[in-house]
């Protein structure tokens, strides 16, 4: 986490300059998802739901107001989420990422291939 931040520095604004390279389309896609509700499944089976706030090249994702749901097989504790607040999910622990379908309406490119 700390490493990611140190490296960030001034380069964080590059994405916002809107360079017209091929890579800027990916950036635009990601930017259009900012502050959208996102559901991320982790390698240990838990699911986090929260606002997409930040990501980087390694797909580390920060969710705001995150809530933790246990794996669906756990019949007892299912349903009651645990409030986590601000949470960072390391990229290598991200299994799947989902967004709400209507939040895709105003974003470009995402989901169209599905």
């Amino acid at each position, binding site marked *: 986490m700390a490493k990611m931040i140190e490296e960030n520095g001034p380069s964080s604004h590059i994405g916002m300059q809107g360079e017209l390279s091929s890579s800027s389309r990916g950036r635009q896609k990601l930017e259009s998802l900012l502050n959208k509700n996102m559901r991320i499944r982790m390698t240990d089976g838990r699911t986090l739901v929260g606002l997409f706030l*930040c990501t980087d090249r390694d797909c580390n994702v920060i969710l705001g107001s995150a809530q933790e749901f246990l794996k669906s097989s756990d019949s007892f504790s299912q349903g009651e989420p645990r409030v986590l607040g601000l949470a960072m*999910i390391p990229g290598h622990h991200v299994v799947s990422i989902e967004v709400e379908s209507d939040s895709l309406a105003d974003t470009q490119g995402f*989901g169209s291939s599905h």
Partner: protein
Amino acid sequence: MVMKSSVEDDDAGWGLGVPEKMRNNANWVDITHDFKGACKELNLGELLHDKLFGLFEAMSAIEMMDPKMDAGMIGNQVNRKVLNFEQAVKDGAIRVRDLSLPELTGIMDTCFCCLITWLEGHSLAQTVFTCLYVHNPDLIEDPALKAFALGILKVCDIAREKVNKAAVFEEEDFQAMTYGFKMANNVTDLRVTGMLKDVEDELQRRVKSTRSRQGEQRDPEVEMEHQQCLALFSRIKFTRLLLTALIAFTKKETSSVSEAQKLMQQAADLLPALHSSVQQGIQSQNDTTKGDHPIMMGFEPLVNQRLLPPTFPRYAKIIKREEMVNYFGKLIERIKTVCEVINTTNMHGILDFFCEFSEQSPCVLSRSLLQTTFLIDNKKVFGIQPMQDMIKDALRYFVSPPVLSSKCCLYNNHQAKDYIDSFVTHCSRPFCSLIQIHGHNRARQRDKLGHILEEFATLQDEAEKVDAALHSLLMKLEPQRQHLACLGTWILYHNLRIMIQYLLSGFELELYSMHEYYYIYWYLSEFLYAWLMSTLSRADSSQMAEERLLEEQQKGRSSKKTKKKKKSLGARPLSREITMSQAYQNMCAGMYKTMIALDMDGKVRKPQFELDSEQVRYEHRFAPFNSVVTPPPVHYIQFKEMSDLKKYSPPPQSADLYMAASKHFQQAKLILENIPTPDPEVNRILKVAKPNIVVMKLLAGGHKKETKVLPEFDFSAHKYFPVVKIL
């Protein structure tokens, strides 16, 4: 998956207004592939984020799947279902009736261990509430276990209330959160003790009926039952006594404190029985599926894992059963000591009591009980005496100020009365704080002592003004008497005590490096103890002046009472304290000279001062003293001038200094050995002084002068003064 929309108070405020957007059966679309692809296009180290979300916010995110931050991880990694009480009962995983005696004994012992672990600073959720039975005692059908569960809850509740009220804890001492659990609030204290007593009586009958009779062939099964009943009986009775003692502390009468003391003694008498039967209860099995936690029927270490805040100490190590009885023994001793405080009436005595008690580093419960026993509801001492009266008594005892003497005309002068009453009222809060500070843990005390000096500086100022006003009033009424520096002396005395304690506690807390010792000991010996001794002797002469006056007045009335005169030749009230201060001063002076001499011989390792200097450290060490006016702080430059050895001719060599140090230790030894009734503290100092006399003489004679091995300072005999060891 059902989504529960709840409004959280996220401090960063991210996602306000989200909950209404989160609704059931939202249509989720998988974008994993696209998302990961898009991420690849970002540069190394580049963060894609909203304008409003920056590095600062990112810093406070918890990292998932990091065992240090992610409390939810553990619960998710065990291969079993974590059941709550109702589920466990339904599943038949635990029973609420037909429990065998060894099962009950085992559950109770584990519960005791959890209770102790909680008292040592862990959260209730990770200790007592890992026991499923206390989640809802109403569901328990076994009468012994039900009464016990309620008893434990009541003990926790009262302990929590006491600790909260006393407010002498910090996060490292105590976790007061109850996580929404009910602390048996629907049942009265009396009902619970009654239930425990009923179970106890029933068990006692069984114990008696299975007792061996003379000449009878012993049936091993009956003997076994006898032992098991006895084990359970002792545990139930112990719980009842502990609870009743705590209830006694909540009462306002002083008599209830001695009542609590008796109950604690009875509880102590049960400890051997508890100890001998620890093996009788069912033992926990170690199973890797529960992580490091042992498996025990009725306990689920992870049941509250999801109640914990996102970042929390993950693991509370529950103490072992073998240590349980030992801990209870010590706890009982501490609570019994606390009860003794009501036998001390003088404020200085009480202050000493608090200091001494704190020196054993007692637990937060006993510390809190001491506080709440001393000041009941923050109004009156022991619930009977107003703090102001106690302060006046302390003043009379210490300096006998004319204004508080019934033989002085000021005593009934309403203006003088106003002065002294308002002064005493102003004193009451700082002195209450001072006593409260001694209830905190040792490390926090030091910090708080540094801060309270500011309040005492204000009092000092007021004391001097009141002294001056009273003096000018007295000059008009009784020109032969004086009222000079009476109140001021008393406040100064406390100022100095606080300062000395502040510096000394740095040794106990191991804050100082070896190269700093010399200026700390210098400050103590040359400055603070010198001031303390002159303050004490001024108070002493003030007392004597007052006594002389009283005698003269009495002589005027009856010349027969000359016998009483001899009394003044006996021990003065402050003489012991003066003697002790002399001993401490000599110990400090001895240490100071030792350190200087060791430094001359190159036997003190000094740091490479790069970013700081000795001056920076010195000023930091004595920084809290800057708020004090009397005595004025000694600044680094002054210290360097005052301690400069070049002002002597010829300047002393290390051998001279070792010799001088040896003499100081010798002097301290002489003083201490002449104390008629030596207390443990006297013996502790002697244990340091004696070997140091010898070591310093050896060093003065050039012993191991060439060795470059650094000396060792052994603080095991005394917290503040080390035995110097040359290797």
